[in-house]
């Protein structure tokens, strides 16, 4: 951490109850290094297909960032040094080691990386929490948004002959995750329901969630993976 920065006094936002959270629980006993090959492949993909990300980060070469998917039991250290960029998965990172940390649920972080959601809007709604040097985080957000990343497409290309299989698998996984997410929303609504006193508000909420669920199922079907 740099001088003048303020360390968080509170734990970052509680992760949403989601399939990713369960995945996180399942991954807990595992050594995070097991996942390192995925991030090595991702870095190779970035160097090959999106070198402009590193170019845009050139001014911030000495400011590593910690990316913390709040629903998974590991964090990712991103070192944007264009000479020796690194994407390293770890159990945890000492805040002293990095210029900034981005906390957020995995699904939000992926949507952000793919430019599917507006970073400012996410921050306005507090689904992302930023600690430390805001400048490097803004630079990273802009660099990634500018690259036009499509994680499934890009990773398939990176994996060469296995790309087609990966694409099918990833597509199925995303479809599954979408549907599970929708189911979990319903379950979550049911779990929190007793706490909600206003019965009318409750039923409106459940109706809205059911609508959302339908929409998600439709979207998954259109994607051809349901």
């Amino acid at each position: 951490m740099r001088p003048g920065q303020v360390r968080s006094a509170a734990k970052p936002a509680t992760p949403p109850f989601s399939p990713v959270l369960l995945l996180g629980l399942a991954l807990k006993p595992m050594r995070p290094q097991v996942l390192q090959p995925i991030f090595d492949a991702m870095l190779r993909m970035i160097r090959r297909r999106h070198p402009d990300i590193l170019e845009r980060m050139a001014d911030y070469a000495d400011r590593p960032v910690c990316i913390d998917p709040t629903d998974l039991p590991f964090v990712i250290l991103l070192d944007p040094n264009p000479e020796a960029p690194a994407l390293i998965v770890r159990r945890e990172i000492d805040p002293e080691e990095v210029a900034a940390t981005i906390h957020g649920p995995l699904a939000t972080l992926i949507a952000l990386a793919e430019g599917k959601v507006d970073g400012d809007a996410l921050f306005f709604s507090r689904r992302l929490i930023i600690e430390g040097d805001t400048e490097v985080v803004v630079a990273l957000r802009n660099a990634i948004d500018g690259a036009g990343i499509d994680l499934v497409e890009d990773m398939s290309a990176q994996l060469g002959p296995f790309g087609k299989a990966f694409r099918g698998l990833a597509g199925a996984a995303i479809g599954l995750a979408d549907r599970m997410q929708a189911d979990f929303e319903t379950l979550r609504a049911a779990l929190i329901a007793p706490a909600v006193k206003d019965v009318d508000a409750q039923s409106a909420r459940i109706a809205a969630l059911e609508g959302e669920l339908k929409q998600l199922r439709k979207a998954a079907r259109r994607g051809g993976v349901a």
Partner: protein
Amino acid sequence: MGSTLPPTRPELVCPAGTPAALKSAVDAGADCVYVGFRDETNARNFPGLNFNRKELGEGIAYAHDKGAKVLVAINTFPRAGTPELWHQAVADAARLKADAVILADIGLIEHAARVHPELRLHLSVQAAASNPAAIAFYAERFGVKRVVLPRVLTVQEIATINARIAPVETEVFVFGGLCVMAEGRCALSSYVTGQSPNMNGVCSPAGEVRYTETHAGVTSELSGFTINKFAPNEPAGYPTLCKGRFIARDKASYLFEEPTSLNTLNILPDLIKAGVTAFKIEGRQRGRAYVAAVVQAFRAGVDAVMAGRPLPDIDLDRITEGGKQTTGAYEKAWR
């Protein structure tokens, strides 16, 4: 007078901070895209944003291929003693076949008009030309073709200006972040941080921002000055100075402006009637998702008005600052 002419179809001028956003804007129906170089020559000199020369050349080719124009904003005020960076930016925009440059500084406009007489000149909002005499000055002296009006005028004042300055075109902001001060005439940012829109192309720069999470919520600071405090579940805004919560007369309030976004979707017919040539969407720093959503909404809005159909009901709440919207200075009560 120009005001009696039937309204023409306004151009939709859309922001792009990156090549990916430029493609998003063009694909979503932008007539024009405005961009800047990756340095202090433009007023969105934000970390990791903007175009290098190669990217601009490719972006212009992509836009031209799809029938869209590209405008290059070179709208900061050149540093005394070192105008070369700005002169080079104008020369490169001309060489790469930009459809126009958007300039604010009188000296730079004079340079561009003299050295690149074929280059179309737009006056940036940062020049704050807020009346017909100011606009006439830029048009007559330097051949400026279009003026981006400062966000201080009412729709009625805009109509009056248009009637007086034809054939000079006007461009007005229709969506996005809102300066509450006359643009280009505000030094609040440099007073607090040392960096300003006019000199550095940044307002309330990210490098000076700190968020502190505590059990009581989040505090946002700019160069050590508290700009706002949010309760744990309250939507938090970026600490832009003029959108902060401050104490005056022993009362804490959003003294200058609330965290809010300009949204004129519902008054588009009035702006078209006022004789505006181009509608500008703010937000080169906002990313592809924002660009696509807003450009689609305004494409639909403008097309509906021109076809005599009712305005579409499009909800842009989720991408507005603090989830709030305003028609800003276009309505007099805002003042």
